[in-house]
């Protein structure tokens, strides 16, 4: 096993713990926006699509990478905007928010 792989695995394992830790106490009313928000975050796959698209040499790779860029961008842009639209609804509260 290479050092790079070991580093990657280290990052992966730590990220698993963080991912679980940061949402362990979330009220039900936020489940949908949270799902939508995390949905936007896996749009980070766009970074991978860009790296492939920018270095592809064959036509097939270019085609695959191009579709990947389009898909991932839809995921990122649509995901964040839709989440914002949902959360915008929670903004108008009469006074102070109820304690959760």
């Amino acid at each position, binding site marked *: 096993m290479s050092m790079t792989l070991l580093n990657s695995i280290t*990052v992966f394992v730590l990220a698993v713990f963080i991912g679980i830790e940061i949402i362990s106490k979330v009220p039900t009313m936020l489940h949908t926006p949270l799902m939508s928000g995390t*949905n936007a975050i896996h749009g980070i*796959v766009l970074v991978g699509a860009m790296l492939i698209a920018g270095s592809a040499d064959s036509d097939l790779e270019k085609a695959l990478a191009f579709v990947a860029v389009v898909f991932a961008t839809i995921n990122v842009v649509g995901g964040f905007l839709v989440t914002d639209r949902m959360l915008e609804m*929670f903004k108008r509260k009469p006074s102070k928010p109820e304690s959760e």
Partner: protein
Amino acid sequence: MTVLALSQTAINFTYLVAAVLLIVGIRRLSSPPTARSGNWIAAVGMGIAIFFTFLDEDITSYWLILVGMAIGTVIGAISARLVKMTAMPQMVALFNGVGGGAAALIAAAEFHRIAPAAGHLSGDSVGAMLFSALIGSISFSGSLVAFGKLQEVLPGRPITYTGQQIVNALLFVALLGLGVLAGSTEQGIWMVLLLLGALLFGVLLVLPIGGADMPVVISLLNAFTGLAAASAGFVLENTALIIGGTLVGASGTLLTVLMGRAMNRSIANVLFGAFGAAPAGGAAAAASTDGKSYREVTADDTAVMLAYAQRVVVVPGYGLAVAQAQHAVRELADLLEARGVDVKYAIHPVAGRMPGHMNVLLAEAQVPYPQLYDMDDINPEFPRTDVALVIGANDVTNPAARDNPESPLYGMPILNVDQAANVVILKRSMSPGFAGIDNDLFYEGNSAMLFGDAKSSVEKLVAAVKAA
């Protein structure tokens, strides 16, 4: 024509900044007052990662990326703007699906780039590549089926046939075999077959799941896509992808469990239970409903009941959302409050089509936040409630879930609407709810049906309360 290439170290440093912003973003998304800013903080983190990736020295051609991003931005922004609040769950499913598709395509392109020189596939990355292709494809096709079910392009009811689980198990084993072949022979044909097989598996996995369970499925597929993105990160040795993808994979899995718990359903049960198909006891019970009788009530009678009540609990469901009746309901509640009636809203954890969906819809109609009660807070109130007004909610009020062990709903926590002195159910017809199960509540002695479109019924109630 590399404009300005940053060193890999510098780029990785920007990825670290991006990762911190993503983590802070998700954390803030988990609490109501900070949620909106959390979303934007995560978006900024994402923007940083994307921007600095442009400066990666590996990227030698920009036009493919720029054109692709332009197209994706237009499609994503327009669909996010135009989608109705009621159709939000299937929109999330679509966005999730394309993310999974992107991860699978990355794996396929990378396989094609490396594989021609046989023996060059490094053992370190080949596993991740195959995993990304497999999970990404499953997430893609599964999300499309989930979209189809929620959009009612496909039947919401579970689609089952005998031996289904055996077929699925065999297909899964076959996929593992294809993965081994693709990894060991490095022949493109096996990769293509793996991708196609995984797409098929995604379809077969979601088809037998009923529409009512779709939120849990979407959440699970969301976690899948996160893991697919993370494994694409292993392939490309890219920390931003690994961190971003893993965060979603982990938090998405936990969120799926939390959602399942709110519906009293285990993930295994959701995936393999074919909930709502209910050919056995449930269907027999449904067939016998012809013999049961229900009572119909007019809007005027209901209005009088409401106007002279002390305590009214409104139970909103998806039907309210579809009819866009939330504004009319708020008007009715305002009128009643002006007459001194105590009005509360009972929000079942899965009211609407997703946990939290109903809160979003009512907030859109500017229903005061403190009037919204969770299931656990409102259930003790029902015995003291004069009128429970059920508007387009169905399965979440079915007493069979509490009382009838034969019912497919049995065990799901419900709103104890039947304990109120009077129950008025606003509904278009006697047809069963999303889970395809008849509701015993309609035949209770204290229940009465007010037929019609939710919006026009509520508007009639508003007019009648004004006159009362």
